[in-house]
């Protein structure tokens, strides 16, 4: 089941620069997308989300962009900080109440000082 794909297993960025994490999806029924951050030995922590009626959502250093025609979303972190080093998961869900999340494989971000 490859409905949500994160094609880059890892990304390394210099502190202060922009980190761009990408996610592609195939199911056109998805209408709500989320990014989670995960540290080792912890559960996923919600970071930011976007509804399919929008193309951008911003929260501090984090911005999510949605391109519905390309079925693509991205998470921008600027400026990147060493504490941002973690695994980032993209997730998607569709319109029903109690909707399950479909996760991508995750991208491990390393921000170097």
């Amino acid at each position, binding site marked *: 089941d490859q409905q949500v794909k994160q094609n880059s297993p890892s990304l390394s960025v210099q502190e202060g620069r922009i980190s761009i994490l990408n996610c592609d999806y195939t199911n056109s029924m998805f209408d709500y997308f989320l990014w989670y951050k995960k540290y080792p030995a912890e559960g996923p922590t*919600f970071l930011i989300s976007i509804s399919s009626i929008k193309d951008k959502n911003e929260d501090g250093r984090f911005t999510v962009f949605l391109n519905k025609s390309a079925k693509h979303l991205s998470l921008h972190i600027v400026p990147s900080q060493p504490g941002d080093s973690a695994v980032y998961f993209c997730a998607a869900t569709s319109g029903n109440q109690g909707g*399950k*999340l479909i996760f991508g*494989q*995750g991208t491990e971000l390393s921000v170097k000082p």
Partner: protein
Amino acid sequence: EPEVTQTPSHQVTQMGQEVILRCVPISNHLYFYWYRQILGQKVEFLVSFYNNEISEKSEIFDDQFSVERPDGSNFTLKIRSTKLEDSAMYFCASSPQGRDNQPQHFGDGTRLSIL
């Protein structure tokens, strides 16, 4: 900030034994979920639960699995007869509503090791 708590953090069980994983969702949340992550693989949905019944379940959630909300605070996942392939991290999650831009909040997981 309220959080989802899971116990135990690590459970080691012999194959064929029953195991119960416990979760305390955030207190005003109405929807509850279990996910699992086998080592090196994606986080996978197992089951969602609302109003004291299962809302949706995945193919993974077969007759060996069950969920229960025995009181007003706990939410449990039971595996009746564990198999080696049940070894994984199991995450509980909850949300105040099922959708409407309300994200699911996750616990730190229970690492289940089947010997």
